């Protein structure tokens, strides 16, 4: 079935639930950038971000039938992307400890692929500071300042109150300031 640009995301999810690969392709065209960029900010490695994106859309394919209509499709997608990224990150850090390649939680040597040459050092420092944030602070910060989502949507994705998200953001900003100024 062909999907028009005005087809709603919910209709696409319904199509995916009926195993329509064309609906998945359309959803991918609309949202792959969000998923890939979220994963890239967490993992700070293009290959890992690609793998996480694959996992996210595979999960969407498998669990579309269980999508609850009360939340937005983007909220649901971000929730899957954040959880999958955090799981991949934990796995990577564990592998690092056992393999003694990257012991502890040292950030990778990452430059965002779209960063300007003259801003590369600043870019590296910012992403490195984001990498060091605790999980919940990181999620609140990434969704608010990298993905630029409204605070209420960040709260919905994280399953927290608006006040709790504001608290996490305050702590995240403080940690970032300390790390970058050091």
């Amino acid at each position, binding site marked *: 079935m062909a999907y028009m640009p005005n087809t709603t995301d919910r209709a696409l999810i319904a199509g995916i639930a009926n195993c329509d*690969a064309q609906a*998945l*392709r359309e959803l*991918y065209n609309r949202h*792959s*950038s969000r*998923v*890939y*960029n979220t994963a*890239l900010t967490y993992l700070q490695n*293009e290959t890992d*971000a*690609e793998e996480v*994106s*694959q996992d996210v*859309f*595979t999960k969407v*394919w*498998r669990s579309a039938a269980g999508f609850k209509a009360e939340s937005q499709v983007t909220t649901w997608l971000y929730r899957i992307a954040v959880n999958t990224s955090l799981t991949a990150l934990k796995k990577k850090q564990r592998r690092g400890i056992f393999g003694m390649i990257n012991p502890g939680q040292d950030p990778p040597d990452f430059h*965002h*692929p*779209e*960063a300007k040459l003259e*801003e590369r050092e*600043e*870019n590296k420092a*910012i992403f490195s500071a984001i990498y060091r944030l605790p999980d919940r602070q990181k999620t609140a910060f990434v969704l608010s*300042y*990298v993905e*630029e989502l409204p605070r209420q949507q960040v709260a919905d994705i994280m399953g927290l109150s608006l006040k709790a998200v504001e608290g996490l953001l305050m702590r995240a*900003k403080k940690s*970032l*300031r300390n790390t*970058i*100024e050091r």
Partner: protein
Amino acid sequence: MEDKTYNHLRNLPRAVPPEGLFDKIEAKIGQAKVVALADWRQFAAAAVILAAINVAAIVQYSQAQPETSPGMAAVENTIISDYEIYY
């Protein structure tokens, strides 16, 4: 410092997902189906083998029963007859 950080993030263009990513996703979905099917076949094959082994064991046991009993009886008789020597 903070404004500079937020401006940097705000002005940073979004990274473009690599070409061919969707093809990999489609392949992964297809692979998942194949693996699931293969799993079912393996489970079915394992169940059939297990059932066959059980049936074979029961048949062998029931066939072996009559042969063992007289054998045991014979041994017992020998022992008894041995004891009888000392009477």
